[in-house]
């Protein structure tokens, strides 16, 4: 973890209520995709935790972070109005992130809504490590879809679902996965799942496949770095703090 200032390079709307912010600063402490930052926002007391979508590392530990967030409250509303050049205080490299090494050859990457952004960083790392990635990205409707092209550019087989059927496969991510399973063979040859999204999506995925996996969870946080016990959850391996011991839990430890 590092407490450090970042400068906003760009901040633009990329889907309905969804924004992509790029910021420059020190990225030296990040160790894994799926980690998050906690952002101080003027006029609000608590920092706002946002997962990291992508890191472009440059020299001397500096780099550019991409954050994708949905406007859901006061904090994200203020963020959406921020302009280029604004300086923000961030706590960086929070949480454990995904362990891409657990995947040997072929990964099923699943993202739902604003759970999609961290899956971009995971996909990028898996592909860098020479692994095959099938990315299933779920959204509510066509207006909510983002980053389909970016996943394709990384080299992932990318499938988009929408709940209302206005784009891609109609239904949830698990419906797309069922189709792959029926097809069988290479279409459903995965040795690890990586997932982030709303809890009902994670639970449906958990029940829909036998593949081992890592699931990233969300919870309201106080500090974001393990001090306040605001975001605790129970696991088969004991009590964990979503912010410090998570947000990524392995499938074996989740109690459902």
């Amino acid at each position, binding site marked *: *973890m590092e*407490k450090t200032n970042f400068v906003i390079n760009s901040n633009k709307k990329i889907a309905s209520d969804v924004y992509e912010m790029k910021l420059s600063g020190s990225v030296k402490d990040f160790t894994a995709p799926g980690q998050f930052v906690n952002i*101080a926002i003027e006029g*609000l*007391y*608590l*920092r706002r935790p946002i997962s990291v979508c992508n890191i472009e590392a440059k020299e001397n530990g500096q780099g550019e972070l991409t954050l994708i967030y949905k406007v859901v409250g*006061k*904090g994200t509303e203020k963020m959406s109005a921020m302009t280029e050049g604004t300086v923000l205080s961030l*706590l960086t490299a929070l949480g454990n992130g995904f362990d891409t090494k657990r995947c040997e050859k072929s990964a099923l990457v699943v993202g739902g809504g604003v759970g999609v952004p961290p899956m971009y960083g995971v996909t990028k790392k898996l592909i860098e490590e020479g692994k095959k990635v099938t990315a299933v990205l779920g959204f509510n409707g066509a207006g909510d879809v983002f980053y389909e092209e970016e996943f394709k550019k990384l080299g992932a087989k990318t499938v988009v679902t929408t709940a209302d059927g206005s784009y891609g496969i109609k239904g949830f991510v698990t419906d797309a996965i069922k189709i792959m399973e029926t097809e069988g063979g290479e279409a459903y040859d995965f040795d690890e799942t990586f997932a982030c999204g709303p809890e009902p999506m994670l639970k449906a995925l958990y029940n829909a496949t036998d593949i081992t996996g890592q699931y990233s969870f969300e*919870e*309201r*946080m*106080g*500090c974001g*770095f*393990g*001090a*306040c*016990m*605001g*975001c*605790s*959850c*129970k696991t088969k391996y004991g*009590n964990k703090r979503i912010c*410090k011991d998570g947000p990524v839990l392995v499938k074996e430890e989740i109690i459902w």
Partner: protein
Amino acid sequence: MVSLKTKLGDWELDNPIIPASGTFGFGYEFAELYDINMLGTFSFKGTTKEARFGNDTPRIAECTAGMINSVGLQNPGVEAVMEKELPKLAKVFNKKVIANISGFSEEEYVYCAEKIGKSDMVGIVEVNISCPNVHNGGMSFGTSAESAEKITAAVKKVTDKTVYVKLSPNVTNIVEIAKGCEAGGADGLSLINTMMGMRINLKTKKPVIANKMGGFSGPAIFPVAVRMVYQVYEAVKLPIIGMGGVSSAEDVIEMMLAGASAVQVGAENLVNPYACKDIIEALPGAMEKYGINNLYDIIGGAH
């Protein structure tokens, strides 16, 4: 050269800054960031007889200039604290600590105080009779002078350690409770714990926090804390650790002028993990600005 030194009874502290219980864990998260030996001391996470998971989530809500928490005394239990947490803490902290304990009955307070009092690392046992987040979780002991006196006396009987009682602001008259603790033999007082608060989500039209209500803390409650420290200082002869919304060196000076011998910093640690370090480093400049050479000399200076 200004002096930041202060005293809690016979215990001389290098400076008055003490991270408050529940906002600093057992210190390790912060020890990764800076040398926590620069602190006056710190008060570790509230400990109970049995291990507790605490309340359901969400446990946290944002407020104007503050936050509500309803953690519900999550802790591994006093035995695990002594066997696992304190030895780990000893590796990163070489001063004595404040052991914050809670209970659901007099027997539980006594049990925890007796156990934790045996640790050489403990300088003060801070008896929390004011947790707002668990049913019957101590706060009932902190809302009447008689029960506060009884718990204090019972704890004093089983430990040789210095005993501070942590008071709730959620009472009609905090001075009466403070007097009860004094009558029970308390060596000092810590005040204030969080204030009962609540937020409602306009989208779901339901309370934000799973436990509905929680403890409100942060800069918004600072004036209430100053007022209560001021009132209690006038009424009892015990040293006071003042807390509630402290977030700057100026706040520390104000709290000490009200009557605090040392000052705890709580919620601010959660939004700025360097808060205590920043405050300690800012104190000499703030003291010079207000013509203060020796912090110890200003305790109760506003009276």
